[in-house]
């Protein structure tokens, strides 16, 4: 908040010298104090920052992009190119905020941007002196020598000189929300046409959403129409009509989808607690009505950018809506009849009009009448050569029809080069606007499905007569086409001279229309000028197409709540609570959070902890949650036949109560996934997949069934989340289980051998599935219970195993043991390996078709030169192997042609007391015993290792069968 100081008091009393005594839809009883460039001013509720600045006589608001020219307020809407400020400060600083749409609130702080050291005295105005050099595209022609200077000298200079406002550079403290809405009719724009369309739709019983970017409904009618309030009241009475104020529909997307942003709290000092700053709406509408009105074009003449030069419609708006006089003495320059309204407004506000200047030789009697009524001298067939002044307009030079120059004093130049229907949204789905000679503007061409356009947006103007004037001949000084990007008429001419005549080339070469105002005041003037100087029609020259968004949208809104911890959902295992109580350190595994290891009090070194866990499993017994592996229930008469087709190996002879390891390929012959599948019933199987591929494999099975083999009688359902599954591994695992498996079930080695499975009950009647599977290489089981019992099961197992010193282990220990056993996992199943690479060629059945069979037979996939799975152990046993190291012949030069493979996975083996690794090596299996160089330059690693068989531990598999 503002400090109550003398300054504050002065501001309270500040007279607002340009506030009209009456008029406007502002609330004169509600003062709003705000700060601009460190000085406090007063405005009213209902003001924008721009109207409040004008009321206080502030006309110099910013500096231009390239030449740092003084700039004021050109418009009264979201098309503003000049009056950009940094709004708020600290982490909430919002650079490039258009003062013309920033709703005034008490305590608003704004700072002018892109100037040094101050707005009135900007050192970079020197650029204006160098402007002959800074013509369009000059940077493509220079700064090339010496090459090394670009990054060090030229580019930093350019970057500092360019850019606009300063971002806060701090995390956005506010929150955002996403919302989806459905309606029959979406009305875009809350002016007269939009209100009429919404009323019509609501009266017929449609569900309507009306979005308006402004904070007051009514558009140009605000402060000008007596019946507006009545119509708005009727709108508000319809329960199925939703009005979203401060909401910009920024884009049209496929399927009747519209993107919109509601500025929920941008008119507040800061959002209330838990209130979003903005809300992003995805609106799905059966039909839509575009009622976005029209945007005025400036005229292109000398120094047309000087503060005090303003679009005529904006002049009316400041007078009628805000009760502000944008100047005390005006000159009006226009080429169309719509400007009559501005002349009337000036008269209403008692602002002197020195002259009305119109390039048309003849003007209508009504327009002439409007001009003379406010005392203006009328110049037809005339134009303005240039404005005079430095930081603001102090006068103009007129070129009258009969030649010579007339110099007039004024502090306001109201200009109008015609009106462009605001048809941006009609072209978001590739609709092409068409040129309408009658109004000298583009009107909507083909429309997005379901859209209609109404009012001025459709080119339906009250006073359509317009005679285009793309540039004033004989103008002196810079004549701006694109104000914000400082593109002048001469730049457009240079672009033409250099061959950049198409619209696409013009805009890219000169940057015309690429600024934050989306070229809304610039594009058509640029196009018209190019058409004129190339002596082509507008159609031949091109058409302007618009890309979303209609006005710039904060990234935070589009991201909604998906940031920080909420970026993606988090999946917790059924034993998460238990693991947390056991002091587990967790690790991300895709969306899952899994226990990585379980430190005991006093343990700090992860390697020490993991070694302890592995040792406990190898010597005793441990438990680990393996729920995250994908589980797919498969049932149907043809289930076995189906498995035959998706796995490379045979399945038709799998006995009831038995599990089998299976390998799956993609159709292109590379390995996709592996896992075990258990036969639970005659026509009932349970497949497991790797954690990472659970969703993908399910999708694949459905694809195979629904699309490839719909004739098979088989169905699938994912049961990953339905069953909690815990591995119990180690020599004492059976004894641990015996105390919880209900006594009527025999789990002896004879009844439940390795790769056996049983459905049974535990803990006095709880349904469970017991699989004798081993990833660790020990006597081991996986016990599954309904997911809700997972946490209790972990606790129960801990009690049951207490006599054996049962130890929880995490994914690290799991990984160590699988590497010791030479089982391929994620690092080896990387989508680039074949069954041959992984030493599993024997699993490729020769007797049946399966997914990937044909393509796996391509010679490139079985080439012995392909890196193939091997084990590695360091020659110096103290050396640490690192995954990602490459394998080269010892003594060979470290270059790509000597690269023979790489290390996929490494672990410190507590069983062997040194590091071991798995790798893929060309001709690997035939090189056992050879010494290879393990080269890891990115970590300064370079050591020698022996190539060994990938199974380091219990190669005969005695232990797991025990």
């Amino acid at each position: 908040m503002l400090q109550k100081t003398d300054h504050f008091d002065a501001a309270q009393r500040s007279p607002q010298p340009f506030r009209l005594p009456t008029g406007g839809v502002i609330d004169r009883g509600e003062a709003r104090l705000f700060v601009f460039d460190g000085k406090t001013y007063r405005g009213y509720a209902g003001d924008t920052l721009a109207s409040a600045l004008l009321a206080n006589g502030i006309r110099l608001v910013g500096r231009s992009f390239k030449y740092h020219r003084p700039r004021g307020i050109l418009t009264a809407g979201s098309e503003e190119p000049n009056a950009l400020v940094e709004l708020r400060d600290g982490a909430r600083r919002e650079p490039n905020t258009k003062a013309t749409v920033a709703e005034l609130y008490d305590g608003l702080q704004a700072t002018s941007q892109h100037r040094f050291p101050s707005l009135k005295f900007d050192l970079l105005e020197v650029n204006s002196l160098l402007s002959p050099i800074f013509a369009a595209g000059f940077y493509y022609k220079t700064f090339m020598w010496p090459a090394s200077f670009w990054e060090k000298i030229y580019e930093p200079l350019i970057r500092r000189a360019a850019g606009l406002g300063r971002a806060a550079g701090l995390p956005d403290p506010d929150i955002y929300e996403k919302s989806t809405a459905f309606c029959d009719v979406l009305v875009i724009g809350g002016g007269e046409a939009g209100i009429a369309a919404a009323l019509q739709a609501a009266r017929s019983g449609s569900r309507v959403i009306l979005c308006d970017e402004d904070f007051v409904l009514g558009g140009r009618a605000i402060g000008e129409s007596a019946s507006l309030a009545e119509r708005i009241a009727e709108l508000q009475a319809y329960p199925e009509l939703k009005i979203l104020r401060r909401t910009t529909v920024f884009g049209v997307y496929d399927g009747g989808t519209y993107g919109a942003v509601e500025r929920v709290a941008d008119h507040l000092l800061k959002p209330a607690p838990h209130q979003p700053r903005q809300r992003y709406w995805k609106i799905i509408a059966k039909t839509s009505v575009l009622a976005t009105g029209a945007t005025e074009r400036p005229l292109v003449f000398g120094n047309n950018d000087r503060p005090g030069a303003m679009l005529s419609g904006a002049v009316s708006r400041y007078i009628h809506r805000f009760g502000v006089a944008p100047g005390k003495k005006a000159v009006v320059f226009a080429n169309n009849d719509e400007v009559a309204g501005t002349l009337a407004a000036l008269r209403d506000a008692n602002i002197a009009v020195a002259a009305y200047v119109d390039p048309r030789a003849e003007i209508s009697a009504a327009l002439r009448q409007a001009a003379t009524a406010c005392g203006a001298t009328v110049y037809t067939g005339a134009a303005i050569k240039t404005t005079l002044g430095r930081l603001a307009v102090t006068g103009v030079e007129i070129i009258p029809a009969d030649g010579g120059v007339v110099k007039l004093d004024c502090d306001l130049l109201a200009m109008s080069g015609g009106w462009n229907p605001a048809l941006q949204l009609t072209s978001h789905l590739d609709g092409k606007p068409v040129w309408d000679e009658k109004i000298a503007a583009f009107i909507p061409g083909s429309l997005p499905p379901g859209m209609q356009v109404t009012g001025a947006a459709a080119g339906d103007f009250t006073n359509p007569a317009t005679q285009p004037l793309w540039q004033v001949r004989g103008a002196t000084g810079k004549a701006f086409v694109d104000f914000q990007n400082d593109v002048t008429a001469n730049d457009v001419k240079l672009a033409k001279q250099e061959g950049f005549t198409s619209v696409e080339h013009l805009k890219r070469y000169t940057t015309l229309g690429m600024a934050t105002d989306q070229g809304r005041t610039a594009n058509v003037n640029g196009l018209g000028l190019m058409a004129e100087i190339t002596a082509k029609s507008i159609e031949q020259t091109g058409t302007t197409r618009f890309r979303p968004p209609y006005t710039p949208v904060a990234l935070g809104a589009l991201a909604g709540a998906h940031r920080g911890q909420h970026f993606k959902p988090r999946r917790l295992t059924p034993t998460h609570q238990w693991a947390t109580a056991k002091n587990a350190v967790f690790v991300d595994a895709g969306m899952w959070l899994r226990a990585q290891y379980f430190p005991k009090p006093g343990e700090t070194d992860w390697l020490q902890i993991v070694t302890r866990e592995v040792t406990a499993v190898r010597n005793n017994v441990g438990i680990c949650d393996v729920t995250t592996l994908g589980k797919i229930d498969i049932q149907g008469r043809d289930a076995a036949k189906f498995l035959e087709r998706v796995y490379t190996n045979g399945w038709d002879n799998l006995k009831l109560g038995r599990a089998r390891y299976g390998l799956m390929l993609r159709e292109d012959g590379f390995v996709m996934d592996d896992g075990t599948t258990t036969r639970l019933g005659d026509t009932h199987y349970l497949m497991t997949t790797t954690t990472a591929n659970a969703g993908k494999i399910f999708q694949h099975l459905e694809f195979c069934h629904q699309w490839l083999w719909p004739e098979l009688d088989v169905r699938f359902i994912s049961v990953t989340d339905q069953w909690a599954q815990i591995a119990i591994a180690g020599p004492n695992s059976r004894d641990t289980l015996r105390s919880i498996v209900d006594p009527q079930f025999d789990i002896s080695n004879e009844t439940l051998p390795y790769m056996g499975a049983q459905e049974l009950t535990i803990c006095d009647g709880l349904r469970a599935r017991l699989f004798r599977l081993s990833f660790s290489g020990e006597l081991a089981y996986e016990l599954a219970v309904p997911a809700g019992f997972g946490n209790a099961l972990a606790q129960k197992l801990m009690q049951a195993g207490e006599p054996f010193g049962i130890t929880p282990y995490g994914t690290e220990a799991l990984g160590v043991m699988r590497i010791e056993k030479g089982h391929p996992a994620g690092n080896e199943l990387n989508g680039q390996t074949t069954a041959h690479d992984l030493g599993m060629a024997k699993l490729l059945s020769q007797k049946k078709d399966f997914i990937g069979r044909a393509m796996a037979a391509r010679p490139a996939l079985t080439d012995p030169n392909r890196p193939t799975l091997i084990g590695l152990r360091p020659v110096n046993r103290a050396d640490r192997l690192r995954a990602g190291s490459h394998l080269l012949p010892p003594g060979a030069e470290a270059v790509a042609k000597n690269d023979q493979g790489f290390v996929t996975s490494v672990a410190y083996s507590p069983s062997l007391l040194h590091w071991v690794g798995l790798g893929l090596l060309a001709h690997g299996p035939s090189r056992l015993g050879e010494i290879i160089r393990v080269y890891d330059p990115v970590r300064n690693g370079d050591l020698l290792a022996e190539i060994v068989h990938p199974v380091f531990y219990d190669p005969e598999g005695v232990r797991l069968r025990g």
Partner: protein
Amino acid sequence: MGFSRYSIFSVIAEALRGHSGWGPAWRDAIPAPKYDVVSVGGGGHGLAAAYYLARHHAVGRIAVVEKGWIGGGNVGRNTTIVRSNYMLPGNAPFYEWSMKLWEGLEQDINYNAMVSQRGVLNLCHTDAQRDAYARRGNSMRLHGIDSELLDLAAVKKMVPYLDYKNARFPIQGGLLQKRGGTVRHDAVAWGYARAADRLGVDIIQNCEVTGIRQQAGRVLGVETTRGFIGAGKVGLACAGHSSQVAAMAGLRLPIESHALQAFVTEGLQPLIDNVITFGAGHFYISQSDKGGLVFGGDIDGYNSYAQRGNLPTIEDVCEGGMALMPMLGRQRLLRHWGGIMDMSMDGSPIIDKTPVQGLYLNAGWCYGGFKATPASGWCFAHLLARDEPHEVAAAYRLDRFAAGYVIDEKGVGAQPNLH
């Protein structure tokens, strides 16, 4: 007039006389009845190929035909990143050659394309990802490409404004290629066009190829909207529409067309110095010299010839941005647009002869074609001139799919929308 060399001296001299001396950057050529080589597609690759053909190979008359205006396709609608941080032997030498050509490009073509070696940092968030980056970084070193594996402390020092405190997928480190960076994309097309034009190449705009005339399995030229243009050899470089153009010669390609969206914010004072890639979502970002933050993410994921995308991808990209850099929340998206990518079956390109004699193909660039522009042009020129592949592009064969020698950096198989 118009042939003056670009330099600070010529710019000053022209400034003093109101820039009246600059001529067209390239001639708007009228098609001749016959050329020795016609390059179809006036994008970066086609123009680069024409330039290098004219510069380094004596092949006679060369034309580039373009259906619209040059540089209007993907060379003008990308996120401007250049890098050579590739892992596989089929790719790494090629992209490194491209990087070397970028490094000398401006002096070679006398056009400032603003090649800015700001460094490309790929972040990793898991052990497995770090191992994969180590594998890639080591592979790059073996190919003579610069790479550094950064730990968390080094990443923090380099880019302190990322979310290190509250990230769903905490940053562990990253793979940095310092020589990577950005290039002013439009300038690449214009610079090559101007340089090729100076060497006599005809750049023919608004000339759409409607057919490929053949006789007895040999190409004779191209039918166009401006009449038949005879050609000894025809090179196709029309990524995004390769399937369409190749179909004119009766070829089916291992390519799908997909839309990739790109995004730019309002201009800002310097904020982000490098190119940064998120490893736990689809998001990459850099800042242009004009101040806009240029960013992108994944392709929309379905076949498309519409140069635009949809909200799910836009949201996904912005979510990635906010997850990585919470300071982006108040920065405003100024514009988003889409380009059409040739997504190939293994994520890698094709530079090869076709079964039609005299017809050559340069296609399948996926979303990585911009960085490849110089080397693609160089190697395509080599192939067109000598009928044999350049050594760094030797793996980009059309028949590699049949043989199985795929170049699949991501390991996702024949599923173009996943590459």
